């Protein structure tokens, strides 16, 4: 760790331990540390810095550099303090002349094979080798290259006579974000260990021995880009020299200050230090004290922030009368007046309920709160929804029904205590990479893994990790598989009766036990439907029920189905049956997609719920907000996104304010979405870029990035993290200010001066947030809701002594086949997902160098299905469903089973959602993205729809220069 900014970021040398206290004496100071702690760390705790190079407190000690040697009374020699554990009464001397001499000798050797161009080195001032040379008092280097002999260094490309040095290797610049300069490597092995221990990818090795040792990515001949490297940056961060270095630092120089903030990509919610040089952001490094990520990151948060300055970003408001006109740049006043007049005009003409909002899961809690307040208090209706509708709304419904609260039960740290992990319909290594790294670490320590997924995701088999069971079910049969697991647990008597008696409704359980014991739920009976081997399913159920702490992590592969809510309830049943609730290592954990899905749901974005998941029908709840806002609140639920679009087509919904969402690209059945948008008279898009939805917009309000505003995000573990302003908004205003201006243009009279004031209002109206304020977040870094009088410090684990709703409820989970069925016309099942380097619709990541890893969406198809259709790798194929058709290139792989095809949806040209249908979850209308019956055939280019669409988009994106 390069700890030059925040003192408490100091690298303690070796990982912290927990255990009985041990007291020893270091340089005359008594120190008490937990058993198992290294002498190096114990010294650091006492404020004594022992020189070190190969040690870092996020890696196990390695003991290779010998710089950290000390003398210990009663022991011979000079042991390395990083690998020596403390013992009671030990007496250590860290600074004797003997160890000083050894250290200088070590450093002399290192420096003799290191270029002395410190002044122009990109790591100047940020280099541990430099620091250590200073710390040990190295003053001269006596080693010289033999005069006429072969070169014995790694850093000079040629000798003085111009002959090439065979030991010298050129820089590897293949990764877009960091470079590897072998000439500066001291072979401390930290990068290799970081890749193994922290990231779990095992992309790096040390090739060769002794003087020939080299860090090598992948196999011989691979560069970083060609290797398995996933560009997480862990090796770069730990490298003590300039060998592995961010290109941004090489280009812009080292930072002089930093601001702690939160990644705006996924629901893991990693904390970062935004490192600044003046007002330029030079680097994002994962923050060691971030409670979700503990100093780790993935390629997106660490490197993919360049979109903030991308040339496509729109910085001026724009309006147009009709969508076939080009955009006209105007000032804020004019844009807001135009928007407000139109929206009010629509309400006058078509009624109060003819307009609505879509809040963003990308924006802060404060911003989301304001947008739903805009609908409820200013528009006077409940027409507010959020893109969480299309991802995790079934989680809200399912967990609300069973446990009484709509959130994951654990914190991420819980995974360190789990023994058996079930991953259902999630792909953590791509979707939630930092969580995946922590999970893989636990798996390498011996925890068992069960994967339920139609596709062989990376976790099933990757370096040093293998699933005990992979149940490759047919898309759409989740309920049957989850019920079969419960059937095995109940009929084989593997449930935790004590837990059920104490914590759940016993009568309900008995009914449920009868229901689930019926042979129709057995793995054997459902195998034909699900395609899952009954023996494997039985073994998986036994393992989960009897293997110790069992935890379930699930994603959109569970929710985005006709029976999404039912599967969530089935998952809750499994956790209750086995008593896996209310302690570390267990629980039900929805992996949220976007950074603030949890927050968007908490903040009352749904049309039937006020903040804190309280139905609008409750007069006492409405009263709270009516008093706070001084308005009447509609007691009837509003329209959900798909309902808004239906109503638009019917002509009763006319105006939409859409913040930070691209519904045209991300929502299913694109043609229907386009028709809905086209039928509206006022579409206000508030975003960074002219996204696809903006093709149908009349007003464009330029948004701000997460770097440009203050606020909070709530991650998948209910953790409220601060987002801090790092640079001023390039568009002039933070998003919450823009919503406020729009509200005021419509007569609201809001006067929030800072997001902290908005949070005060949230705390005052929402019991689970009652204790949250910015001062507390400043002090604690983050808190997990509920945070109130009974939990002043927040709640890492939920349902510890009882469920939120009192007794846990077992709900019957009968499998119902989706109506989306394969047949002769559409014989294959399409399922969708995403990959590591791109983020959802890709609006941000496509505007960064991440495109190097994923230029286009591909259709994964089993070689058998491909052969039947005469398809080869890379062929253009036509993908058709009853909703529409598109074209993309084929990728032949046995990751998918025969009969199943798979694609990602990151690129607008692919239009994967032209294919998906309007079927949705029975309870929440969450679209059934994960199952579409399709046909695949050879094609020779883009479909008509793709071409028409591209033409319309180009037309709709024209901008006239501002009239001066």
């Amino acid at each position, binding site marked *: 760790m390069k700890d030059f900014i925040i003192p408490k970021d100091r690298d303690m040398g070796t990982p912290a331990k927990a255990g009985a206290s041990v007291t020893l004496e270091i340089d005359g100071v008594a120190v008490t540390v937990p058993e198992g702690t290294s002498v190096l760390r114990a010294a650091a705790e006492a404020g004594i810095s022992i020189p070190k190079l190969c040690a870092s407190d996020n890696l196990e000690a390695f003991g290779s550099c010998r710089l950290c040697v000390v003398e210990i009374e009663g022991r011979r020699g000079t042991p390395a303090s990083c690998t020596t554990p403390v013992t009671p009464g030990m007496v250590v001397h860290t600074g004797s002349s003997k160890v000083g001499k050894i250290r200088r000798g070590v450093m002399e050797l290192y420096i003799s094979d290191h270029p002395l161009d410190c002044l122009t080195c990109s790591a100047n001032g940020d280099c541990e080798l430099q620091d250590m040379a200073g710390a040990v008092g190295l003053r001269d280097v006596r080693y010289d290259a033999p005069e006429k002999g072969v070169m014995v260094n790694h850093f000079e490309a040629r000798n003085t006579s111009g002959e090439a040095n065979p030991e010298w290797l050129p820089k590897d610049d293949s990764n877009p974000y960091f470079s590897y300069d072998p000439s500066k490597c001291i072979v401390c092995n930290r990068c290799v260990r970081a890749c193994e221990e922290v990231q779990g990818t095992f992309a790096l090795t040390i090739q060769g021995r002794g003087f020939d040792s080299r860090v090598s990515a992948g196999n011989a001949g691979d560069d970083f880009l060609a290797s398995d490297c996933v560009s997480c940056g862990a090796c770069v961060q730990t490298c003590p020299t300039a060998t592995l270095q961010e290109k941004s630092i090489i280009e812009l120089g080292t930072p002089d200050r930093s601001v702690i903030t939160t990644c705006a990509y996924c629901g893991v919610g990693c904390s970062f230090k935004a490192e600044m040089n003046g007002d330029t952001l030079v680097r994002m490094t994962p923050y060691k004290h971030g409670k979700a990520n503990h100093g780790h990151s993935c390629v997106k948060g660490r490197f993919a922030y360049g979109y903030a300055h991308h040339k496509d970003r729109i910085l001026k408001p724009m309006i147009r009368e009709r969508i076939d006109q080009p955009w006209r740049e105007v000032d804020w006043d004019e844009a807001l007046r135009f928007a407000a007049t139109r929206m009010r005009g629509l309400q006058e003409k078509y009624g109060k309920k003819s307009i609505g909002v879509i809040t963003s899961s990308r924006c802060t809690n404060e911003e989301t709160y304001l947008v739903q307040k805009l609908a409820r208090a200013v528009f006077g209706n409940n027409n507010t929804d959020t893109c969480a509708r299309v991802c995790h709304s079934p989680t809200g419904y399912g967990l609300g029904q069973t446990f009484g609260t709509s959130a994951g039960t654990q914190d991420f740290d819980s995974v360190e205590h789990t023994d058996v992990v079930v991953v259902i319909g999630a792909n953590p290594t791509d979707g939630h990479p930092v969580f995946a790294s922590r999970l893989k670490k636990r798996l390498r320590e011996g925890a068992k893994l069960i994967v339920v997924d139609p596709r062989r995701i990376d976790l099933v088999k990757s370096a040093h990790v293998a699933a005990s069971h992979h149940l490759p079910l047919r898309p759409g049969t989740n309920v049957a598989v989850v019920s079969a697991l419960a059937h095995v647990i109940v009929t084989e008597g593997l449930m935790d009766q004590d837990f059920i008696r104490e914590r759940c409704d016993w009568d309900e359980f008995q009914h449920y036990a009868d229901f689930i014991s019926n042979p129709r739920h057995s793995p054997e009976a459902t195998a034909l439907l699900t395609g899952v081997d009954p023996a494997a399913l039985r073994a998986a159920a036994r393992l989960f029920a009897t293997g110790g702490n069992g935890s379930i992590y699930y994603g959109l592969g569970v929710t985005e189905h006709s029976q999404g809510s039912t599967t969530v309830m089935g998952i809750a049943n499994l956790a209750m049956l086995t008593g896996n609730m209310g302690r570390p290592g267990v629980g039900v954990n929805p992996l949220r997609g976007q950074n603030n899905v949890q927050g968007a749901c908490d903040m009352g974005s749904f049309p039937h719920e006020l903040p804190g998941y309280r139905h609008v029908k409750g007069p006492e709840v409405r009263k709270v907000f009516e008093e706070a806002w001084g308005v009447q609140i509609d007691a009837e639920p509003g329209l*959900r996104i798909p309902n808004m679009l*239906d109503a638009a087509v019917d002509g009763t919904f006319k105006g939409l304010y859409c913040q930070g969402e691209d519904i045209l690209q991300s929502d299913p059945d694109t043609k229907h979405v386009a028709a809905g948008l086209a039928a509206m008279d006022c579409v206000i898009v508030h975003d960074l870029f002219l996204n696809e939805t903006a093709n149908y917009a009349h007003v464009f309000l330029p948004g701000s990035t997460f770097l440009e505003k203050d606020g909070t995000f709530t991650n998948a573990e209910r953790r409220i993290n601060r987002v801090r302003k790092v640079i001023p908004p390039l568009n002039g205003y933070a998003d919450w200010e823009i919503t406020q201006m729009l509200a005021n243009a419509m007569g609201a009279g809001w006067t929030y001066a800072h997001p902290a004031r908005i949070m005060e209002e949230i705390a005052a109206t929402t019991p689970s947030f009652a204790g949250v304020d910015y001062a507390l977040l400043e002090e604690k870094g983050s808190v997990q809701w509920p945070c109130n009088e009974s939990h002043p410090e927040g709640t890492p684990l939920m349902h510890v002594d009882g469920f939120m709703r009192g007794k846990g409820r077992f709900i019957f989970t009968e499998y119902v086949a989706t109506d989306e069925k394969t047949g002769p016309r559409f014989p294959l099942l399409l399922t969708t997902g995403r990959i590591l380097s791109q983020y959802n619709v890709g609006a941000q990541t496509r505007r960064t160098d991440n495109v190097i890893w994923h230029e286009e969406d591909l259709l994964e198809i089993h070689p058998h299905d491909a052969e039947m259709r005469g398809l080869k790798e890379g062929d253009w194929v036509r993908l058709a469903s009853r909703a529409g058709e598109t074209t993309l290139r084929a990728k032949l792989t046995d990751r998918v089973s025969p009969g199943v095809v798979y694609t990602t949806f990151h690129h607008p040209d692919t239009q994967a959602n032209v294919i998906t249908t309007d079927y949705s979850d*029975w309870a929440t209308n969450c679209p059934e993205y994960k199952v579409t019956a399709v046909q695949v055939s050879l094609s020779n280019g883009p479909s008509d729809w793709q071409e028409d669409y591209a033409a319309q988009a180009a037309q709709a994106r024209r901008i006239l220069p501002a009239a001066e």
Partner: protein
Amino acid sequence: MSPEKMVHMANQIATFFKTQPGTDQANRVAAHLTDYWEPRMLAQLRGYVATGGKGLDDIVVKAAGLIS
């Protein structure tokens, strides 16, 4: 909303509650509908039931009658 889509959505809800124990399925479908469907959707449903309710599950028809 197209009538087919509305019928499909309403029947999906009925299908779930029909699998649940007890005898008050129609009430539960009605409760779910009033909790989650916007008034103009409910109006469309009632109107559809009034004109015969073709394709609707019996439970939905009953539930529609329970929604004021």
